């Protein structure tokens, strides 16, 4: 086997320019697959991070029934901020933080005009541990427990209401009892958001402000939960649901934002399709090279048969040659891809503006290990498949005819 492998390696080096081109084609296929994969994977990670670390958390807990009417921001389904429920949530293994929040619908008024908005009240002291990206895109001052009457408006909402940091607005909402209540709110800053709706219609306030507005002291409508390992979120959700019982409803981020899951899935499908095209081009290159190699070496194959080489050995020789090309091409492609992806990360990521948003996100492109494994496996299997025909064609030659070839 060692002799055959040595012979195969020398045959690859025999026609350096052709082998170089083939290795280049394979490397290009691998490079493009990994670059695209790294980019798409980076976008996916960015989107999931934005949701899990900036918006909804890994898990949310509501009272049963909240989910049926959540589009109306119900405030009558509230829970105590401290006590047994929170203790049970914290006790679930893997949970790293719990953030009580209130989400409500309100009317915002700047003194001359008003509009509907969605207000999210969260405890500013707990927020960084649960939603560390919540303040991404913030201009001005963020929410602080020490300043309960100061909030942050979505960038476009602030523009529409003609307010800026330092301005005041009035928020009016219906309490849990159905009474109307209104409070003044100082505008501390604005936030530019990757989701257009949130820039246009959302503002965040300290939890204490939301509790005061709704007359829900010591209460929250939801608990947003952070976990140590996002990959285990389904198991943690099941454990938490079991611990809390049927009166509560635990949902993980994939249930809370199914659109994100769909987008990531579609991105992967598109990525796979494009990768298949790149890999197919590379594999066709290998097939062409191997066919040329067989046609050029017919007499040599005849000589090998004459001295007693079996058909199977001829097949193995050509497959070794193809695998050598695949190994060199894949290694070259990987080195180039990881170098370029590393360079992109070192430069701070690839800037990307989500559709309809003014916010610039910096995608950190990382080729996941599974994509590397899949690309390498596809290249090796494809190369073996592509070289099988030339190899069997070589092995099927009749010695006497092969020896006659010029």
């Amino acid at each position: 086997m060692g002799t055959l492998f040595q012979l195969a390696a020398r045959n690859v080096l025999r026609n350096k320019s052709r082998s170089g081109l083939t290795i280049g084609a394979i490397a290009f296929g691998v490079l493009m697959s990994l670059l695209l994969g790294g980019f798409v994977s980076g976008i996916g990670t960015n989107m999931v991070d934005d949701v899990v670390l900036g918006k909804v958390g890994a898990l949310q807990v509501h009272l049963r029934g909240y989910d049926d009417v959540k589009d109306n921001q119900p405030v009558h389904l509230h829970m105590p901020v401290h006590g047994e429920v929170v203790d049970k949530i914290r006790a679930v293994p893997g949970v790293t933080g719990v953030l009580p929040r209130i989400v409500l619908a309100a009317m915002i008024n700047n003194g001359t005009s008003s509009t509907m908005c969605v207000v999210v009240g969260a405890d500013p002291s707990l927020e960084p541990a649960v939603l560390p990206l919540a303040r991404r895109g913030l201009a001005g001052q963020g929410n602080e427990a020490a300043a309960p009457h100061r909030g942050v408006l979505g960038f476009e909402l602030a523009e529409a209401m003609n307010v800026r940091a330092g301005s005041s607005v009035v928020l009016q909402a219906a309490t849990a009892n159905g009474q109307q209540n209104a409070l003044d709110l100082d505008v501390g800053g604005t936030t530019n958001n990757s989701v257009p709706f949130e820039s246009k219609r959302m503002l965040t306030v300290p939890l204490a402000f939301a509790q005061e507005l709704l007359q829900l002291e010591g209460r929250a409508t939801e608990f947003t939960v952070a976990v140590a390992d996002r990959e285990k979120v389904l198991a943690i959700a099941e454990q938490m649901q079991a611990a809390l019982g049927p009166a509560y409803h635990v949902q993980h981020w994939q249930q809370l934002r199914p659109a994100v899951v769909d987008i990531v899935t579609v991105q992967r499908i598109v990525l796979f399709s494009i990768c298949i095209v790149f890999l197919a081009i590379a594999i066709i290159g290998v097939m062409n090279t191997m066919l040329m190699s067989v046609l050029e070496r017919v007499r040599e194959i005849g000589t090998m048969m004459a001295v007693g080489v079996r058909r199977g050995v001829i097949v193995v020789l050509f497959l070794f040659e193809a695998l050598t090309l695949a190994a060199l091409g894949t290694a070259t492609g990987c080195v180039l891809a990881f170098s370029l992806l590393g360079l992109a990360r070192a430069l701070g990521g690839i800037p990307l503006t989500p559709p309809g948003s003014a916010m610039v996100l910096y995608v950190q492109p990382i080729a996941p290990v599974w994509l590397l494994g899949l690309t390498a496996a596809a290249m090796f299997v494809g190369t073996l498949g592509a070289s099988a025909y030339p190899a069997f064609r070589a092995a099927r030659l009749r010695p006497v005819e092969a020896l006659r070839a010029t």
Partner: protein
Amino acid sequence: MALVELVGITKSYELGRTVVHALNGVDLQVERGEFTVVMGPSGSGKTTLLNIIGCLDRATAGTFRFDGEELGDRDFNDLAEIRNRKIGFIFQSFNLIPVLNVTENIEFPCLIRGDPKKALRERVRQVAEEVGLGKFLAHKPDELSGGQRQRVAIARALVTQPQVVLADEPTANLDSGTSEQIIDLMLELNAKENVTFLFSTHDPRVMAHARRVVHIADGRLVDGTDSGRAEVAAVAGMGAR
């Protein structure tokens, strides 16, 4: 028992609608240790005859025995094994593997059958010395002259210690001086090592060295001369070729 025994061997090819009869009922016996030349003009069937004896091709009809075994129904891999262990080949165009050096070309038939490399290297060196290539072991074929390349081919044929060496016009691509040297080398190996040689040529100069000459024309053996044996197959008649 003859080493090679052909009885009534015919070989026909179909070329489109035409049937070409390359061999028409050839009877031939080659004993161990013989140095036999198959003589004949181009297209007479010399190469076809050698190809059948070398298990590179199959006869259309007739009986072919090698070393007492009937080989007509053996499959490709069986024949490859026989070629590897019992037959050495020397070709007109040398047919060396260009990416291998002299040592590697010579040892190649032994390596593919799994001979241990260390023990093999000594035998390769000896055979290379015998054919006068001791100083060229690390050379690639394209660094050698035609005569040297043919010596490599001879060494490759001999290293497996075959029962017969088949040489198809081995001097056709060599100048007369080198041809003489190659023929002398084969005669010497025949005399010293008792290696059986069977080779084809249409070069009359070779005749002077042959111990036994078999003439072939139009796919039939037409005459036989024998330097030591009483009889050589001689079949009269002309066929289409």
